[in-house]
């Protein structure tokens, strides 16, 4: 029984000589708040999804008793998604596509940047970090607004492209162009990925890399066989921390495109809330989204807690 094992077991009770009620009491306000405003809403969503609609005002009427839940909305959404007249299907597929493309692009951009700042920036590391993290502090809306400025018909992007003879007349970037939306998503989410990747890459023990070089691996092979495997966990975390929230994104599309042809599932949900009679469907879609993402979310949380308790990296 080593000392660390002893200490580990001791952790079972630093509260041994302290009143047992103390710790839960401290946690109660937070727990209470979360219960009412985090857990309870899920139940409400379920109740609305399993509820009916008021024929007069066309607002959703929730049913509180689980035994009485109706399947009307669910069936409606299912048919909208997969059925003969599926018009939501494209939105879902589009969401998946945009999400996958944007997330991948984010990772491809973020990894080199994070790697550079973490391992090769030398004395200027702090400065690079601030520069790279700065967009984090600029509101998302402002960043989209910034691109709006540039992508307008007579904006600087069209100017530059015309001057470079890449286009002959101004392109309307801000209406229904998937490229714009995807690039907007990348622009918006990439700082988060960089920060997460940076934290992980920074933690890699430099002596491991030195050992690899010492043993004869060249720079490329050191990277492929040592750095990359070590950063695998962080890459997954970074991918999830982008891909999951992105699935619920709708404002990027609205700001940079605003036409239904580039709709994401988030747009459908948010518009269903303001359309009379569609509240229930919105709720079902939210549940649908939640269920689809539940597994990756749980995976992320568990791997983060494991990482926090001191594993690896």
């Amino acid at each position: 029984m080593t000392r660390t094992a002893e200490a580990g077991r001791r952790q079972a009770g630093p509260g041994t000589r302290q009143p047992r009620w103390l710790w839960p009491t401290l946690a109660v306000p937070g727990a209470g708040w979360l219960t009412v405003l985090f857990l309870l809403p899920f139940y409400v969503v379920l109740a609305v999804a399993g509820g009916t609609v008021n024929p007069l005002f066309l607002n959703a009427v929730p049913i509180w008793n689980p035994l009485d839940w109706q399947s009307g909305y669910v069936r409606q959404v299912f048919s909208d998604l997969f059925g003969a007249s599926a018009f939501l299907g494209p939105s879902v597929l589009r969401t998946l596509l945009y999400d996958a493309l944007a997330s991948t692009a984010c990772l491809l951009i973020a990894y080199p940047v994070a790697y550079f700042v973490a391992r090769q920036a030398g004395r200027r590391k702090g400065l690079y970090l601030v520069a790279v993290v700065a967009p984090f502090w600029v509101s998302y809306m402002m960043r989209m607004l910034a691109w709006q400025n540039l992508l307008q018909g007579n904006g600087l992007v069209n100017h530059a492209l015309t001057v470079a003879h890449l286009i002959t007349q101004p392109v309307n970037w801000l209406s229904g162009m998937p490229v714009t939306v995807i690039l907007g998503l990348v622009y918006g989410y990439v700082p988060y990925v960089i920060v997460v990747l940076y934290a992980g890459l920074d933690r890699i023990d430099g002596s491991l890399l030195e050992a690899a070089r010492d043993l004869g691996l060249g720079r490329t092979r050191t990277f492929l066989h040592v750095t990359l495997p070590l950063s695998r966990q962080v890459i997954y975390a970074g991918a999830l921390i982008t891909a999951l929230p992105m699935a619920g994104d709708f404002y990027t599309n609205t700001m940079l495109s605003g036409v239904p042809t580039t709709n994401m599932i988030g747009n459908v949900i948010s518009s269903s809330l303001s359309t009379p009679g569609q509240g229930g469907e919105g709720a079902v879609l939210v549940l649908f989204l939640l269920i689809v993402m539940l597994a990756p979310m749980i995976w992320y949380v568990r791997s983060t807690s494991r990482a926090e308790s001191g594993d690896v990296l």
Partner: protein
Amino acid sequence: MAGGTVTLNHLTKRFGSQCAVDGICAEITAGEFFSLLGPSGCGKTTTLRMLAGFEDPTSGQIVLDGEDVTHLPPNRRKVNTVFQHYALFPFLDVRANVAFGLKYQHCSKKEISQRVGEALDLVELAPYQRRRPAQLSGGQQQRVALARALVLRPSVLLLDEPLGALDARMRRTLQVELKALQERVGITFIYVTHDQGEALTMSDRVAVMRSGRIVQVANPRAVYDEPADAWVADFLGVSNLMDAVVRTPGNGTRPCRVTVRSFELDARGGTVDVAGQVRLAIRPERVILCGFQESRANLIPGIVERTVFLGSATQVIVHLAVGVTIQALADNASEAASWPPGTPVQACLPADSLRVLPCDPAQQPGESRQAEPAGEPASAVSPAS
């Protein structure tokens, strides 16, 4: 300050199915420097934490100056602790750190100032009182931790391997200082360590712990020269151990005669009145190395394997004819120190320094007084080892 007497009565601590401390009993007198010595995991730290009040004993009793404090919370005991990593509050300067506990003793501002000043003088850190812990060296931090505990005038001071984080030289200096401090202040120190050198240097008495039990309690000299069993002998300093069979048990007047392979030796130390399988122990510094021609009692021939220069002495490693390799300590200037590997020598194991230790912990002195039956002829048998 008045020292405190501490009595531990069958103190036990279990963590789930594992028993960290197994019914230990001890009586610590007031003003004593008492050490708990043992390897990692032997339960010494757990014992200390129970004394401090951070662990609840599973059973047993802790009596401090006649009062049962077993279930008293740590802030109500007249016991203070010096932690292994000092746990100095980083956001307070030295003075504020030392003054921290005085708030709970309801002292006036003037009294606080005075007592803090006294404590800082005691550890000679008055010039550093405005510094933050991060600006002090390891040894200075340790002294602040001491001052912070002593200013509260406890009956007992608990020290949890306080010198563990320091380098060797600083450790040696602080060992002397700690001992001097304890003598000056006069309270009981209970000191936990895994370093036997430390325990031997500073303590009035040492309790050697193993697997949750106290194996031996005695003053340092006794623990070193008269270890209770082979394990203690091996734990405290280097010990040469070999298996032997008792030929004739000893008593008050005559030594125990044992056979090691075909060699017969007299032994006067340890439990001489046992029979059967035993272990012999002798400290390297007691082994006398002689040339091949000499004649003495208790001689075993051997060959020098190698010599190791230790600085203050030379260690001579000899492979004996009985199949055991022993270490002997020779003076740097002596002949033995310069014998090359392969030199035939003889090792004299003086009877007074040769200790007989029970092989089997269950074997008690006085049992089976007659020699083993005829299966032990003097020459042929090699005892199992």
